[in-house]
């Protein structure tokens, strides 16, 4: 854009170089009257408010002499350099025309001073100033100013006349006035004399030389007539301008003097002013000046005309500078007409509702704005944008602005004019208007002005404005001294382009600003960048804006800058965040990861420095934390380390905390949390340890037969499952709970993380702070603890750390990407439950033989089989909740029946001790008994080995071992059977139980061969379920106590047999007892009978027993027998066997005592199996005999002596012990001789003579009835005789009872096996020795 012939016409820096660029200028300011508003004297409290009110009066309507209403626009400035005033001839809007002072005074001295300053200001701008107003705010008391009012008014009047004079004489008089005021400013007291009636304190008088229209108010007055007064001022200003315009327009073009830009003065020295060229130059310049005035006077359309003609003239004489001015003027006035809202929006910028209607002013960019503001900006662009795009479609022949554009303009114009008139109506009107007619409405400020084609033909459209401006700028660029003008022109052009929404044009204009070489103060350079940034922002070039802001920021603190301002530097950088796609919210940045990291890092680092230098260490820490957190993935290891160390240094000054920081500007810097240092890779709440974990009192009913099924029926259930982060276990109120996390320190040095806590919501949770030191680069598992204090749902949101001097709240939902955590973990907290401490003691029954070990909750007990001990469990309530529910259960690897024998406890006893108050102890005693099967069936078969046979399930024992036993038992019992028939008789000698005969036959296998019983290990768990407090009905706790019981073998019964005792009602149970312990054993098998058995030795002991009482057992087993009536005989035999076995078991009392270690125990023959024969012995006989000779009762084993030929009377009485009568009982008595060699001689015809029947048949023997039979016998020869007395029945045997054989009857004789099924004998047979 810059002219290639740049600087050709430039001159050495002239005397009055305009050096203060006004970056805030807009094109529409060409049409404004410039008014300076200044606060003087003391600081006014409501100055800003007043300033705003004044600013609002940016336009007034004035009816001119021709009766036309003109819109007069005003621009208020707070400060205006006098140098710029000098350019007033060049562009009249640069002249300062009015002055308003707002001043405060409290006493006369101050008032005088205020007046003096006001006057001196007037002098300062005396070249251009037309009128002034002074608003004086005094103390409240002298609000009323009755006397001064007329006085000042008269002054005003006087001044007005003076002004009129000076208007005519054009500034000529002003210097004199200036002299006047200067001289008189010292002589103020003169006026005091005029106010005589008031004291000095109450009345203030202005100095006499103060010739300004002054208004007096109390300091806090509402100043209702402010607007009116300002409008008054503008009105008066207008008239001056108007008069000047008229004056200028009436000038004869030939005679005009040359107008000069300030730096041009030298150039024209010595030039021929009368040349034709110069004349034209003068004409052109004057025309430009006139156009400027016309524009200011509100005749925009006229000014177009004038500008155009001026440009034509100036072009011909190559007066580029002024040509540029004319062109710029043309552009400005065109822009004013085309874009009226350009004018409206600017002063009303503060009005929020209008802000949206003016799209050029995009909202101040929010730093949190997540969406691309640039795009947003595009979307709500003004209707102009549409018109612009559509404009090329319109025929170019049309001179006027194209349809949509002008409709828009006119409707807006009418809106501004009519104020409240219905815009809808007006716009609809316009729609149907012919192009000609709406041209008139287009310039509503001069409604009666005839619409002239000429005026409008110079109106430039959007494209042309840009083009013309471009040319103007190029022309300006030819003059070095016009640099400021050029810069301002660039900004103005850019603003128009912004309004046109032509970003590229705007950017090219702005770009040009950079190239303009100006000698500016540092502050102005910054301002330039600032304005550039602002405009770039407006066109959505956020990056460009950010770049400019950063440049401005660096300028603020550059070494060239004499007074660096870190604060502004900081804010500039902060506001360049959107351009770098940064947000102040670290989570946003982490999640989106947009922008250029390298630049962002640089910016952030600079920001940290700025914040630190600004003296706000908290901010520095915050930004450094932000930098580390957001840019972590983009930083190298080394940078991590360096930045972490820097952060540590920064936080040493001011600790970082997770609270938002509020800046002075009201911006909020949200907290930045370090979640990378340390890095958490695993985070999960833990269930309570098993001992403290709550269980449901009643376990949930299972819905199906499957413990687990992958198929879920019903959508409801499925939805419930979906809830992420919901834990399946429960936490208990008041109990320490745990969250496990894995932390890694990514920094190369040791990192101390202190005060780690859990962040929770929901119920109250007391977190226990934790401090850890993390070694570099190795994952460490950390457990965080805490106690929930309420019942309900607890959400665990994350954790807080304090590391590198920064406190962070690391929330799971904001965790950096690689680890995906749910937003929160939810754990249900249930009411508090009691806790217990368990102490187990086992009372040892002996000394040393039994070892008790309690390891933790495991108790090891060693018992010998048959031994018993007490295990005492002490339960102490260690919590504050009483235990109201206690339940004891045992689980073990053995079946329940055996288990209940080994572990015996009383449930009632437990329940009676409830409730257990806090710190109270309850005691539960469990009796442990070394239950075992002492019968060693070893050698019989594998199945009968101890592990199996230990099961006390009798039927199974009957089921399996008995078939074997039947094969084996006959060897035991059939032998005696055989031997009894032949060989048992002779061994009648009492106590001959160890007869070799019997021994050899019954116990064929040597005992030593029998495998010794092995020890067993029983693992059992004592499960204590307890509960209390509020939630006792739902939840309970469970403690498990492990009891390992080792059962050692003590004694073993390897073989057994039964023998009839001397008395019929008794029998001997003969047992082979083996001592399996390693000690000598004292074995008690009967009252007063015991035997010492050496270790590993075996002994045979006879245990005297009563026979199994017939009736008794009958009654007992009645159910069995009646049941089994129809069942086969085999089963009934078994049930009988059971009965007998039980009888034996119950009546044997076997006890052992280890002599050395004083351990005692019991043994039992439980499960003993009996063969048929053995059973017969065990059972009591159903028939009871009483045999008497000569009325003398015969005792068993007793020999009866008599002499030959003696008559003996033999009486036999039979009692029926059965529960039923016996029929057809045949009782027979038979004599025989035993040769003791197994031969019996029954042929005793010649030796014995009997009288009476030796065989009687009893038809019926009732139960419990007695039958008696007597016969007489005479032994004829001496010798040994025996009598065989027997009873037989021919009746078919009725199962069990009849099956019972007389145990003492060797049932060898079985006459008519079919008929006589049972024979009972009286044994032993009665022996009679007959002597001579």
């Amino acid at each position, binding site marked *: 854009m810059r002219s290639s012939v740049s600087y050709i016409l430039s001159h050495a820096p002239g005397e009055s170089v305009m050096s203060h660029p006004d970056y805030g200028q807009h094109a529409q300011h060409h049409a404004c009257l410039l008014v300076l508003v200044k606060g003087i004297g003391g600081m006014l409290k409501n100055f800003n408010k007043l300033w705003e009110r004044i600013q609002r009066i940016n336009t007034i309507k004035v009816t001119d002499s021709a009766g036309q209403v003109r819109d007069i626009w005003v621009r208020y400035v707070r400060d205006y350099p006098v140098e710029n005033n000098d350019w007033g001839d060049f562009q009249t809007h640069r002249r300062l025309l009015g002055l308003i002072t707002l001043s405060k005074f409290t006493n006369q001295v101050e008032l005088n001073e205020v007046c003096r300053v006001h006057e001196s200001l007037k002098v300062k701008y005396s070249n251009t100033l037309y009128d002034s107003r002074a608003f004086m705010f005094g103390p409240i008391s002298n609000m009323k100013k009755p006397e001064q009012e007329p006085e000042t008014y008269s002054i005003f009047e006087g001044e007005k006349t003076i002004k009129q004079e000076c208007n005519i004489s054009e500034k000529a008089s002003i210097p004199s006035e200036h002299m006047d005021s200067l001289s008189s400013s010292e002589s103020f007291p003169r006026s005091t004399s005029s106010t005589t009636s008031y004291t000095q304190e109450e009345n203030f008088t202005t100095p006499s030389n103060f010739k300004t229209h002054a208004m007096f108010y109390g300091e806090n007055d509402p100043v209702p007539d402010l607007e009116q007064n300002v409008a008054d001022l503008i009105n008066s200003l207008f008239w001056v301008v108007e008069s000047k315009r008229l004056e200028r327009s009436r000038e004869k073009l030939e005679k005009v003097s040359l107008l000069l830009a300030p730096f041009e003065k030298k150039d024209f020295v010595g030039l021929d002013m009368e040349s034709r060229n110069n004349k034209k130059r003068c004409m052109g310049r004057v025309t430009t000046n006139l156009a400027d005035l016309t524009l200011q006077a509100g005749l925009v359309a006229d000014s177009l005309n004038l500008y155009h003609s001026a440009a034509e003239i100036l072009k011909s004489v190559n007066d580029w500078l002024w040509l540029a001015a004319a062109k710029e003027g043309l552009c400005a006035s065109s822009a004013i007409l085309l874009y009226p809202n350009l004018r409206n929006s600017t002063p009303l910028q503060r009005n929020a509702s209008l802000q949206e209607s003016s799209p050029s002013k995009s909202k101040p960019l929010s730093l949190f704005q997540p969406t691309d503001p640039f795009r947003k900006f595009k979307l709500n662009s003004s209707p102009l944008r549409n018109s612009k795009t559509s404009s090329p479609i319109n025929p170019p022949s049309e001179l006027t602005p194209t349809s949509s554009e002008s409709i828009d303009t006119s409707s807006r114009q009418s809106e501004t004019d009519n104020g409240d008139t219905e815009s809808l109506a007006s716009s609809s009107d316009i729609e149907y208007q012919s192009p000609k007619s709406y041209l008139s409405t287009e310039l509503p400020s001069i409604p009666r002005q005839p619409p002239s084609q000429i005026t409008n033909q110079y109106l430039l459209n959007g494209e042309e404005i840009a083009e013309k401006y471009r040319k103007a700028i190029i022309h300006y660029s030819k003059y070095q001294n016009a640099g400021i003008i050029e810069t301002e022109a660039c900004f103005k052009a850019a603003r128009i382009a912004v309004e046109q929404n032509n970003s590229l044009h705007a950017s090219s204009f702005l770009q040009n600003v950079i190239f303009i070489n100006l000698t500016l103060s540092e502050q102005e350079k910054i301002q330039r960048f600032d304005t550039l940034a602002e405009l770039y922002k407006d066109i959505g070039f956020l990056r460009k804006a950010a*770049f400019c802001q950063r440049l401005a920021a660096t300028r603020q603190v550059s070494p060239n800058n004499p007074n660096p301002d870190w604060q502004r530097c900081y804010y500039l950088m902060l506001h360049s965040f959107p351009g770098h796609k940064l947000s102040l919210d670290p989570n946003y940045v982490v999640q989106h990861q947009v922008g250029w990291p390298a630049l962002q890092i640089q910016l952030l680092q600079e920001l940290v420095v700025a914040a630190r230098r600004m003296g706000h260490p908290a901010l520095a820490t915050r930004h450094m934390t932000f930098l580390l957190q957001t840019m972590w993935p983009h930083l190298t290891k080394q940078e991590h380390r360096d930045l972490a160390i820097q952060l540590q240094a920064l936080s040493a000054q001011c600790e970082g905390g997770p609270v938002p920081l509020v800046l002075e500007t009201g911006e909020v810097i949200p907290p930045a949390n370090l979640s990378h240092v340390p890095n958490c890779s695993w985070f999960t709440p833990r269930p309570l340890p098993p001992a403290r974990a709550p269980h449901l009192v009643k376990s949930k009913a299972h819905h199906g037969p499957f413990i687990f099924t992958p198929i879920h029926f019903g959508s409801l259930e499925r939805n419930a499952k979906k809830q992420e982060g919901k834990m399946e276990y429960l936490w208990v109120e008041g109990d320490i709970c745990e969250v496990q996390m894995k932390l890694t320190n990514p920094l190369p040095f040791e990192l101390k993380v202190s005060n780690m806590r859990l962040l929770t919501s929901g119920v109250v949770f007391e977190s226990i702070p934790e401090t850890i030191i993390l070694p570099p680069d190795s994952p460490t598992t950390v457990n965080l603890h805490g106690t929930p204090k309420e019942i309900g749902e607890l959400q665990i949101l994350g954790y807080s750390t304090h590391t590198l001097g920064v406190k962070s709240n690391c929330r799971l939902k904001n965790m950096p990407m690689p680890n995906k955590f749910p937003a929160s973990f939810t754990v249900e907290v249930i009411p508090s439950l009691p806790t217990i401490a368990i102490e187990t003691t086992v009372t040892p029954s002996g000394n040393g033989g039994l070892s008790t070990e309690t390891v933790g909750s495991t108790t090891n007990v060693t018992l010998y089989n048959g031994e018993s001990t007490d295990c005492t469990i002490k339960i102490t309530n260690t919590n504050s909740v009483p235990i109201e529910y206690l339940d004891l259960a045992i689980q073990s690897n053995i079946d329940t029946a055996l288990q209940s024998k080994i572990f015996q406890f009383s449930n009632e006893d437990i329940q009676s001790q409830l409730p257990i108050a806090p710190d109270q102890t309850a005691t539960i005693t469990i009796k442990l008994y070394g239950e075992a099967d002492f019968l060693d069936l070893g050698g019989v078969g594998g199945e009968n080995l101890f592990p199996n046979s230990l099961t006390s399930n009798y039927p199974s024992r009957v089921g399996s071992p008995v078939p074997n036993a039947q094969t084996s038992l006959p060897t035991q019992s059939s032998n005696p059977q055989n031997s009894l028939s032949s060989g048992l008789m002779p061994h009648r000698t009492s106590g001959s139980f160890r007869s070799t005969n019997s021994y050899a036959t019954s116990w064929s296998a040597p005992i030593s061969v029998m495998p010794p019983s092995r020890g067993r290990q029983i693992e059992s768990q004592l499960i204590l379920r307890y509960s209390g407090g509020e939630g006792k009905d739902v939840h309970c706790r469970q403690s498990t106590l492990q009891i390992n019981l080792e059962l050692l073998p003590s004694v073993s019964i390897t073989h057994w047999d039964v023998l009839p005792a001397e008395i019929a009602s008794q029998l001997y149970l003969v047992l082979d007892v083996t001592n399996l312990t390693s000690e000598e054993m004292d074995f008690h098998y009967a009252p007063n009978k015991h035997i010492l058995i050496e270790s590993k030795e075996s002994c045979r002991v006879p245990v005297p027993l009563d026979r199994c009482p017939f009736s008794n057992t009958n009654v007992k087993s009645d159910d069995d027998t009646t049941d089994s009536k129809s069942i086969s005989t085999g089963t009934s035999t078994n049930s009988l066997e059971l009965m007998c076995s039980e009888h034996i078991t119950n009546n044997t009392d076997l006890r052992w005592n280890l002599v050395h270690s004083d351990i005692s125990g019991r043994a039992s023959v439980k499960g003993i199996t009996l063969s048929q024969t053995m059973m017969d012995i065990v059972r009591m006989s159903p028939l009871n005999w009483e045999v008497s000779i000569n009325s003398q009762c015969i005792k068993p084993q007793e020999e009866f002596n008599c002499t030959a030929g003696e008559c003996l009377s033999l009486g036999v009485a039979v009692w029926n012990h059965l529960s039923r009568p016996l029929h057809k009982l045949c009782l027979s008595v038979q004599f025989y001789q035993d040769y003791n060699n197994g031969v019996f001689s029954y042929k005793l015809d010649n030796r014995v003579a009997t009288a009476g029947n030796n065989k009687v048949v009893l038809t019926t023997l009732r139960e419990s009835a007695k039958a008696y039979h007597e016969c007489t016998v005479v032994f004829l020869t001496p010798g040994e005789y025996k009598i065989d007395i027997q009873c037989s029945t021919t009746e078919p045997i009725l199962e069990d009872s009849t099956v019972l054989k007389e145990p003492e009857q060797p049932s060898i004789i079985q006459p008519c096996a079919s008929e006589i099924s049972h024979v009972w004998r009286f044994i032993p047979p009665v022996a009679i020795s007959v002597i001579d």
Partner: protein
Amino acid sequence: MAVCVAVIGKDNSPLYIGGIGNDTSSDNELSRQWLVHTALDALEERLTTANPNNSGTNTTTARTDLRDLYLGLLFSTDTHKIYGYVTNTRIKLVLVTSSTSPSGSNIRDAEVRTALRRLHALYADAICNPFHLPGDQITSPKFDKQVKNIMLNNV
């Protein structure tokens, strides 16, 4: 004299920034990034202004595809000129040249155009690598070498 070449992704993330740190300290990586980054605004603006015009009518949609990929001078500073080029997949190629070439002659537009076309070809070659994920930074040393070649020889 080209000083820097940048490849910028669809989402305006930097894919590759290569430069020849030949002379001054200001020519370091960071300042290059600033330059390219600020050029993105103008680049985007050109793309958005190009689009509505083209897509306004159906007849001109075909022109969109045939649109010249070369965008020309984006903006210039005292020391640098920045040229833009956009592929059809919206990958932006930015070439930064120093305004004052040592030979004294100004760089011609055509030269830049050809350089950017070659760069486009190189880029296409580079992302043909099956192991390259679109959107990732280009780390190919070969690409780097060739780009540097272009910068040194061509312009």
